[in-house]
């Protein structure tokens, strides 16, 4: 009983991850992160991704504020923010977000305001897609954990 339930959840995780890899949302760097998780740092992947979300949202907010300003002209600043986003996205394996940030950055290098606005929209879209997918993944993982705990608990109460 214990095995079957966890297997199903594990299959869900695998399916989700495989899909994300196929779509190019994630790349192999995401797998590298998993290699960094062990008993001494058991929630590493979860922690890093959450920090990535915090940092990215700050940057995206700043980018939107900059571009919404009618008198905006600081393309260099946009570029700096995007360098950060490109870097951190690539470090956690968020390939699609990284790629659309690079495209956005090209527009900023050409001082192309409408291009930047479009670029920002695309980045925001990809970012939120990734975030939702990660949340889904975490939800399944939480289910695995609580399922395992419940099963273990039940087993300990009544090992029949």
């Amino acid at each position: 009983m214990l095995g079957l339930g966890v297997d199903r959840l594990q299959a869900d995780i695998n399916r989700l991850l495989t899909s994300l890899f196929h779509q190019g949302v994630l790349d192999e760097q995401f797998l590298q992160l998993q290699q960094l998780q062990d008993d001494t740092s058991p929630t590493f992947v979860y922690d890093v991704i959450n920090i990535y979300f915090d940092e990215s949202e700050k940057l995206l907010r700043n980018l939107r504020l900059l571009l919404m300003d009618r008198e905006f002209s600081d393309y260099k600043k946009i570029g700096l923010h995007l360098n950060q986003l490109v870097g951190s996205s690539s470090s956690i394996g968020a390939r699609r977000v990284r790629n659309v940030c690079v495209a956005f950055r090209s527009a900023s290098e050409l001082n192309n305001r409408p291009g930047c606005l479009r670029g920002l929209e695309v980045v925001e879209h990809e970012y939120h897609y990734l975030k939702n997918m990660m949340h889904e993944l975490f939800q399944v993982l939480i289910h695995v954990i609580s399922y395992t705990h419940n099963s273990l608990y039940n087993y300990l109460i009544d090992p029949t």
Partner: protein
Amino acid sequence: MARDGGVSCLRSSEMMNVGIRGMESPPLDVDEVHVLAVDDSLVDRIVIERLLRITSCKVTAVDSGWRALEFLGLDNEKASAELDRLKVDLIITDYCMPGMTGYELLKKIKESSSFRQVPVVIMSSENVVTRIDRCLEEGAEDFLLKPVKLADVKRLRSYLTRDVKVSNGNKRKLPEDSVTVNTSLPPPPPPLINSSDSSDSSPPLTISPESSDSYSPLSPVEIFSSPLSSQLDEEDDVLTSSPESSPAPEESPIRRQKMESPGLD
């Protein structure tokens, strides 16, 4: 996990303060590789720190070139080399950083007398050949393309080990003046080596597999717990000149002992 650019290890100067009050030493494992990582991105700092820790390095991660210089004691004009015998085995820095770039940091490190021999590795997300060449010309040991992977860091670790085992006159030696220090400050107490404590270093960085019993006649613990200077000198000579000593008599703990306790002559 560390979320700030704070310093996470003891400086030698702090060790010295501890020594003044008594003969206690902080549990500094001299055999551990200590890496200074510099990156303005929090996410990248966390990843690089984890990559290094998982390969048994002690890590200090800072968020800017300025903080790196500050940590190394290179941030002001006065020569603080004698006061701050910091043990840094490798510096790994991002190239693109606001304020001071990794390249500028590299130059400053190579210009310093205390740290010019520390290998510096540059990381960058851009594969720009001219940038790579420039860094290598300025003395960078290696150039890593981001995102950095475990295999990259393992490779770095392996050539650090090689350096340390090769010879006495290698990159990890501190400059000559640190050996004949004549400041008014008491010398740092010899650090205790507790080899059973190095549980997260597998394999131990600087000790070759067969060498743990080749420090004869004295084990590292005995060497480092001896408080008397003359005794230490004697032991030094015994270790380096004895034919029974390990195949590489310039094994790092011995050399490091010289580095760490220079004023005991």
